[in-house]
């Protein structure tokens, strides 16, 4: 799934990923500015909070599409492994943080950092898993 790939499925995924990532950033900026400036409550607050999550849903759908479209079994396996390692590492970090937060008064982890954390760790996992097969 790197930028030098010739796989059409991977190229499509990269395009979709970039679009959804851009949407995520736009939605985050929009939601934060409305929350900060207008302090909405009730259903509007919920709607704004859901906005960035829509981009996440689209990104997960793009990943699912990539897995369905990719014909190279090796690449598909690499993508699945990095996803599994990404979520495993994310949950390991959050559990460790959770214990420190609950019992040693470490500051509360901002929940909307979980998604970027997962993306970062999956990316690292993709590099590491790919390297193992070189």
């Amino acid at each position, binding site marked *: 799934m790197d930028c030098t790939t010739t796989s059409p499925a991977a190229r499509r995924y990269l395009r979709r990923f970039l679009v959804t990532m851009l949407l995520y950033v736009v939605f985050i900026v929009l*939601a*934060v500015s409305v*929350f*900060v400036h207008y*302090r*909405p*409550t009730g259903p509007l*607050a*919920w709607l*704004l*909070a*859901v906005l*960035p*999550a829509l981009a*996440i*849903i689209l990104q*997960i759908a793009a*990943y*699912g599409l990539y*897995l369905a479209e990719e014909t190279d079994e090796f690449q598909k396996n690499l993508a*699945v*492994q990095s*996803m*599994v*390692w990404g*979520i*495993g*590492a994310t*949950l*390991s*970090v*959050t*559990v*460790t*943080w*959770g*214990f*420190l*937060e*609950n*019992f*040693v008064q470490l500051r*509360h*982890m*901002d*929940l*909307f*950092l*979980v*998604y970027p954390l*997962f993306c970062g760790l999956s990316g690292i996992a993709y590099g590491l898993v790919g390297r193992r097969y070189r």
Partner: protein
Amino acid sequence: MFDSCKTNNPAAWRFTLRFIVLSLLYGLFSVLSAAGLLLWHPTGIVIWLLAVLPAIPIAMAVLVTGRYMNEEKDDFQRAVLVQALLGGIGATLVITTVWGFLENYAHFHRLDILFLWPIYLVFVAIAYYIVKAKYR
């Protein structure tokens, strides 16, 4: 996989057994970690070691899932699991993002980050049954 009680698939059986052992380990390590941090008031590196303890079975669960995918000869079962994992990951990330915003800007009740692991497991299980039902 989740309905491996009815299956005679050896890979699914092994996965379920390993997962049960790891879940028990997670419970045990969580109690140990909480008791250690609350009762002994450790300092320095011991705090970190105790906090990392419950994360070990989670990391091992990832290994076990990867191993199951390699051992599972049935492509359909593997595809269902991958879709269920995607569903579980998506739902967990959506919940944390929405809740994070409400927590920060709408004074919503704080979500204990320790709940992320059970939330993820529940959604993987729900997604698994939904995907399975889709193919029935």
